[in-house]
C-alpha cells in the first residue's frame, strides 16, 4: 500500500457504498488505476458483500410479497363498513366486564339498594313533629281526662267512674 492509500481508505469505503461525490469518485478512480493494492482491497470488499448479499437476495426472490399484499387488499375490500350501532356493540363485546353480562344483576342490585336505602333518607324526622300521644279517645259510659307530664314521657288517661272525683289525678 502506498503512502496516499491510507488517506484514501475512508474514501474507498464510501466509493464502494456509492456515497462519494463526483470529485471524490474521480480521485478514487485515478488512484485505483495506479494502485494494485487498493484494487485488490476493492475486489475483496466486493467478494465479501457478494457473500452476504446473495443469500438475502435469493430469499427475497422466493418470497411472494405481491400475493401477500393482494390478500390484505382483498380482505380490506371484502369487509363491510361498520355502522355506529355495530361499533357500539363491538365496544360492549370487547369490554370484559360487560361481555360477562354482569351489568344485568349489577343494575338490579344497585336499584334495590337505592330502593332500600332511600326511603329512610327522605323520611321526615318524626322527632320534630309534635304528634299527640292520644290519637283519639271515646267513652260512652264515663268521663275521660287526658293529662301529660311536663317531661313528656308519661301520658295519663283518667277514666272517671261514679263519685270518684276525689280520686282523680292531683
Amino acid at each position, binding site marked *: 500500500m502506498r503512502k496516499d492509500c491510507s488517506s484514501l481508505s475512508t474514501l474507498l469505503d464510501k466509493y464502494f457504498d456509492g456515497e462519494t461525490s463526483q470529485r471524490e469518485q474521480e480521485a478514487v478512480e485515478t488512484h485505483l488505476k495506479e494502485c494494485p493494492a487498493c484494487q485488490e482491497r476493492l475486489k475483496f470488499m466486493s467478494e465479501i458483500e457478494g457473500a452476504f448479499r446473495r443469500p438475502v437476495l435469493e430469499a427475497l426472490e422466493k418470497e411472494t410479497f405481491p400475493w401477500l399484499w393482494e390478500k390484505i387488499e382483498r380482505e380490506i375490500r371484502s369487509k363491510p363498513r361498520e355502522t355506529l350501532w355495530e361499533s357500539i356493540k363491538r365496544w360492549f363485546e370487547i369490554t370484559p366486564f360487560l361481555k360477562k353480562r354482569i351489568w344485568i344483576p349489577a343494575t*338490579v342490585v344497585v336499584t334495590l339498594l337505592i330502593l332500600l336505602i332511600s326511603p329512610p333518607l327522605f323520611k321526615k324526622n318524626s322527632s320534630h313533629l309534635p304528634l299527640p300521644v292520644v290519637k283519639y279517645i271515646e267513652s260512652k259510659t264515663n268521663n275521660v281526662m287526658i293529662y301529660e307530664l311536663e317531661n313528656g*314521657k308519661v301520658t295519663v288517661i283518667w277514666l272517671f267512674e261514679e263519685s270518684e272525683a276525689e280520686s282523680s*289525678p292531683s
Partner: protein
Amino acid sequence: MNKTILFILLLLILFLSFSSQEASAQIPTRLRVIEASNVGVTIDPSLKELHGQLSSLFKYTSYRLLRDERLHLSLNQTTTLPVYPERTIEITPLKFHANTAELRVKIKREKTEILDTQVRLPPGRTVLIGGPKHGEGVVILAFSSLF
C-alpha cells in the same frame, strides 16, 4: 334455569323480605297493672322506676303491682288480657312506623265498652290509663314501650 334469572329472583326475595320486615315486626311492650290506694304507705319495689312519676301525678300513698306482662304484640292482632276488677283490656297494634307503635286499646266491663282509645307509643314513653275502682283504691294500667 339461567343463572342471571336465579340471581335476580334471589334478590327479589331478599328485597321482599326486607320490605315485609316492618310489617311483620313484633312490638315489645310492657303492661303493668297497678293498684293505687291510700291504705298504708307501700311502694312495690318493682315500681321503683315508675314511683317518681306516679307520686308526681297522683295523691295515693300506696302502689301495689298486681300484674306485670311483657307483651310481644303483632300488627293487627288483638291481645286480650283480664284486668282487675272484672274488666278486660284489648290491645291491637295498628301501625309500627318510624319507631312508634300505634295501639288501639279498649277496656271492657263485662260486655260494655268503657274506653276506646288509640295511642302512639314512641320509645321510652309510658301511657297510664287509670280510674277503674278496685278495693279501696283504683287500678292504673301502665303501658311502656320496650323498643
